[in-house]
């Protein structure tokens, strides 16, 4: 029908607008459009009309068939040609449309439009080989796999084309028509390689160039086993003393590799995994504290893909090389019995060393002190051995060897070298015991012995004979033995000998103890002034024989003029400090020892305090004195009176002492074996006979002022004060004349010119002390005494021994060894 009516072909996409052309242009200016009618060829009535017969075309009545275009259609007369616009074209709109234009004058114009409506495909289903529907991800597959994807598209008109794209590149894929209007596109992929992972496989379908294609993109997922695994920094030596964080990296696995650590086939569990940002590399960190025992162990790092359990894990191995601080052991020479090494034996040690790296130095230590190779001392160090020639008891002790390597110093456990020896007499024990008759004395013999299991034998020797001491008087305690001894007669004074023996042998030389009659201590000697200051000075002396009893010491400081005691210091040792003295003044001092039997002879010396420098230079005695006198004039008479009383008391006291000293002197001669001084310090109860322990060592202020006054007065009226040099000279002078204390007061200057030397100007004015017998006073019992003779003293000693045997024979013979001091 209507084959002769011209027809325009139009294609529209469903959902889009379409414009159906219809020429309404008039040929003649007088002409006009009356009516525009749109027909669809299968319908008898128009579907759209513009009726302009009774009005202007611009306001012409427009009508649209509700069952066809309804409100979607609108006529566009201003276009050339005019068009009927239809929005949102539907599939059902497809068809042939005829437009009839009635003109007022011109012939009616008919035209046709063949409208084709393209309906894009609306359904796409992708299935894999198993028939499973895939939507975003396909896989995972593994390398070498091949697979097929089918893309079924339906719902479009006309039948759509289907194409597969891989990463937006078209793949030549066959497409086949299916029932209905559906089409299937098939893509074959594979064999897969690692490069194929994450490939984008896109199925795209459309049925018109202008129609929007529908598409589905699938991402190819693949699983890969790991490609590499490496323990970072492997095969380097490790130190046993440190903790290491070891890293193992694996890459190439997808999903990321799981890393495990193994040591000799045992799983190490404390590893921590981290993943690189691209997900390709897994790093596992394990913290290991390795020990020497791990040397040679196989440390393995295994990487595997948890999704691919059937694929063997990748492994990197490391044979551990462990370095450690040397381990050392001291081993005694094999032919030596460590329990039976005696003095004089040669001993050698080996240092057994385990070390990696090997030691560069070996050192030996004895009681923590490094030993030096010294052939002269019998210490021979070679390689890892130590030879000790002729060991002695001092050689005993703990021996260690130390190995040095880069890891550190390894010191062995100590080897305790025990050197056995026969007993010997211990040094530093009281050799001389002063014992009064009927006094019960405890004489203790100390020996050194190894082993300490010793037994003792005592003998008593005097000039007459030698006797064993009965065991009933003897007690033993370890390496000491004590004999209880009570002399009853003169013959009971003599020498006790102590012999000890252990399983090593007998004591070669016995310990010797002299039992002497107890008496006053000897005079101290070698006294010197030390640490002089403005108001104090110190004095030190060497002590003399204690008379067989414990002794104490006393310092008296007197004003030279008034002989008044200004300081009185007692001490267990002959070291003193006198304080609270006047500056720049010289004092007469005396040091004496005392024990339960009485006082020893005093040791006199002069000591001075320092003089203030300003007075020394500026003050003139004539200027000073009146002022001083005036200042203290109010108290002067009383002070002089008090001072006089003190002087009288002091003098009386001194006389008494001297008399006592003189009486006892003959009995207190030292034994010949007792050398210059015997410093035994056995403390015994003080008899307090030698009193004078005035607690007021430091004089009160008033006393000090009085003394000061006296001194000044004395200086001003009698003689100028001694120079700064004077006290020292005095000390030197006193030292020169040892028994100076007595001469100071008793002996005229002619007999002791040296002692008087410094005091020559003042001595004339010093009132002479009480008269002492100079011989009695100066008889010393120590060495270098004013009257000492080896011949006389033994006689005195012998006189006290109970038996008339020639005692000097054993005693001098042994004393050089027994009294090394």
């Amino acid at each position, binding site marked *: 029908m209507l*084959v*002769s009516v011209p027809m325009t072909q139009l294609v529209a996409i469903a959902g889009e607008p379409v414009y159906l052309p219809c020429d309404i242009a008039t040929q003649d200016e007088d002409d006009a459009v009356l009516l525009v*009618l749109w027909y669809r060829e299968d319908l008898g*009535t128009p579907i759209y*009309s513009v009726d302009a017969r009774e009005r202007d075309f611009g306001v012409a009545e427009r*009508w649209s068939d509700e069952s066809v275009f309804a409100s979607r259609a609108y006529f566009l007369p201003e276009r050339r040609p005019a068009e009927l616009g239809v929005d949102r074209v539907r599939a059902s709109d497809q068809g042939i449309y005829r437009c009839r234009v009635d003109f007022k004058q011109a*012939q009616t114009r008919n035209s046709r439009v063949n409208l084709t409506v393209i309906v894009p495909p609306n359904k796409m289903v992708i299935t894999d080989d198993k028939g499973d529907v895939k939507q975003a991800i396909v896989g995972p597959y593994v390398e070498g796999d091949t697979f097929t994807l089918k893309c079924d598209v339906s719902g479009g008109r006309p039948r759509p084309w289907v194409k597969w794209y891989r990463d937006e590149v078209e793949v030549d894929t066959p497409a086949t028509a299916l029932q209905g209007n559906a089409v299937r596109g098939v893509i074959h992929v594979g064999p897969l390689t690692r490069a194929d992972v994450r490939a984008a496989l896109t199925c795209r379908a459309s049925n018109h160039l202008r129609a929007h294609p529908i598409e589905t993109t699938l991402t190819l997922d693949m699983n890969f086993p790991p490609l590499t695994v490496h323990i970072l920094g492997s095969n380097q030596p490790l130190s046993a003393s440190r903790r290491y964080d070891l890293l193992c990296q694996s890459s190439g696995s997808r999903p990321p590799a799981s890393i495990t650590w193994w040591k000799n086939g045992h799983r190490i569990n404390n590893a921590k995994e981290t993943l690189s940002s691209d997900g390709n590399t897994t790093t596992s960190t394990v913290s290991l504290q390795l020990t020497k025992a791990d040397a040679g162990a196989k440390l393995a790092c295994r990487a595997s893909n948890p999704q691919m359990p059937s694929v063997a894990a990748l492994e990197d191995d490391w044979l551990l090389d462990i370095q450690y601080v040397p381990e050392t052991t001291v081993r005694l020479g094999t032919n030596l019995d460590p329990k039976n090494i005696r003095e004089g034996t040669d001993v050698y040690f080996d240092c057994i060393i385990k070390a990696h790296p090997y030691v560069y130095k070996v050192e030996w230590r004895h009681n923590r002190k490094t030993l030096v190779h010294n052939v002269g001392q019998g210490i021979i160090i070679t390689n890892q051995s130590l030879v000790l020639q002729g060991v002695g008891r001092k050689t005993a002790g703990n021996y260690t060897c130390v190995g040095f390597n880069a890891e550190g110093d390894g010191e062995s456990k100590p080897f305790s070298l025990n050197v056995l020896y026969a007993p010997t007499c211990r040094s530093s024990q009281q050799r001389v015991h002063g014992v009064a008759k009927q006094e019960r004395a405890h004489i203790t013999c100390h020996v050194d012995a190894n082993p300490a299991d010793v037994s003792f034998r005592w003998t008593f020797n005097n000039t007459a004979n030698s006797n064993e001491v009965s065991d009933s008087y003897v007690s033993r305690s370890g390496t000491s033995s004590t004999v209880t001894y009570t002399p009853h007669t003169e013959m009971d004074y003599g020498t006790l000998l102590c012999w000890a023996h252990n399983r090593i042998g007998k004591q070669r030389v016995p310990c010797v103890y002299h039992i002497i009659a107890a008496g006053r201590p000897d005079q101290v000697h070698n006294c010197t002034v030390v640490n002089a200051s403005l108001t104090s000075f110190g004095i030190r002396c060497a002590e003399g024989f204690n008379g067989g009893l414990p002794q104490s010491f006393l310092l008296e400081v007197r004003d030279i003029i008034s002989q008044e005691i200004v300081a009185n210091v007692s001490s267990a040792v002959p070291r003193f400090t006198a304080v609270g003295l006047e500056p720049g003044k010289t004092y007469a001092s005396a040091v004496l020892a005392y024990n339960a039997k009485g006082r020893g002879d005093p040791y006199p010396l002069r000591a001075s305090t320092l003089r203030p420098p300003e007075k020394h230079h500026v003050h003139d005695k004539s200027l000073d004195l009146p002022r001083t006198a005036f200042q203290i004039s109010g108290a002067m008479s009383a002070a002089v009176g008090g001072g006089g009383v003190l002087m009288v008391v002091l003098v009386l006291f001194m006389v008494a002492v001297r008399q006592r000293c003189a009486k006892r002197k003959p009995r207190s001669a030292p034994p010949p074996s007792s050398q210059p001084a015997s410093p035994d310090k056995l403390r015994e109860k003080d008899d307090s006979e030698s009193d004078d322990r005035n607690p007021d060592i430091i004089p009160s202020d008033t006393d000090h002022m009085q003394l000061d006054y006296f001194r000044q007065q004395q200086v001003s009226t009698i003689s100028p004060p001694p120079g700064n040099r004077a006290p020292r000279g005095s000390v030197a002078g006193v030292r020169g004349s040892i028994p100076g204390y007595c001469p100071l007061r008793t002996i005229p200057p002619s007999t002791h010119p040296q002692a008087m030397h410094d005091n020559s100007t003042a001595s004339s004015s010093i009132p002479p002390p009480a008269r002492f017998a100079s011989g009695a006073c100066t008889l010393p019992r120590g060495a270098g005494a004013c009257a000492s003779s080896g011949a006389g003293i033994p006689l005195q000693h012998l006189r006290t021994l109970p038996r008339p045997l020639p005692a000097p024979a054993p005693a001098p013979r042994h004393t050089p060894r027994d009294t090394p001091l």
Partner: protein
Amino acid sequence: MFVTFIIISLLIKESLLLRIVRVAVPSYKVRGQPAQLDCDYELGGDILYSVKWYRDNEEFYRYMPKYDPPKHAYKLDGIKVDLSKSDDRKVLLHPVTLKSTGQFRCEVSAEAPSFASAAGEGRMEVIYLPREGPRITGNQQENNRRGDSMFLNCTSGRSYPAAVLSWDIDGEKVTDPALLVEYPPIQHQHGLVSTALGLHVPTGRTMQVRCTARVAPSWREGSEAVVGNSQLADSKEAMLLVKSSCGVSTLNIMLLTLSFALLLSSLIQLET
């Protein structure tokens, strides 16, 4: 007088709507005669808005009752409307010419608001029968020179549509294409056409050669009901006697032409 082919097109949606009952367009008309086109329709409940006649989609007549005058004809080549004998259901073309041939369509439209429309159409062809018979011609000299055969041409008289030529030798139709030579049709004034057909005549004997020219629309495709009447079909013949001696090169050709027959086809009515 009229041979009528009736084609009915129905656009039926509802019986009450406008519909075409019949559109009658004569299939063939001899040039110079009048042709009446009929358009029968039912308006149903509608009011007539227009009846429009188109030839090949070009309007040449319309009837619109609301307009004055309601009848209006447009001048088209080969279309001459006799308004006095045309109305809302028929249109008279007088006379028809060869240019009147075409597809004729009647479209009836109802008034607003429906503007329902229905149409029917039919094709009309205008023919022209030849006034003279076919002529047989030959070239004496050339035929003598060739010797072994003779060549003849047959040319039809002018007609529309073109005449179809055929050769008979001794009453038997020549179908061997090796013997026939075809020519393109020859256009003449007023759209008339003549045709020609050549024939190689074997020599050596005496024979009767006849050329027949037929003009008829009956072979037109789709006209299953071809009806011939004396005015619409024509067949004319020309005859020739060919004498041949046994001698080598001389031919005596005698133009006999003797038969001129007008064969009138009988009228066959197709009853629908």
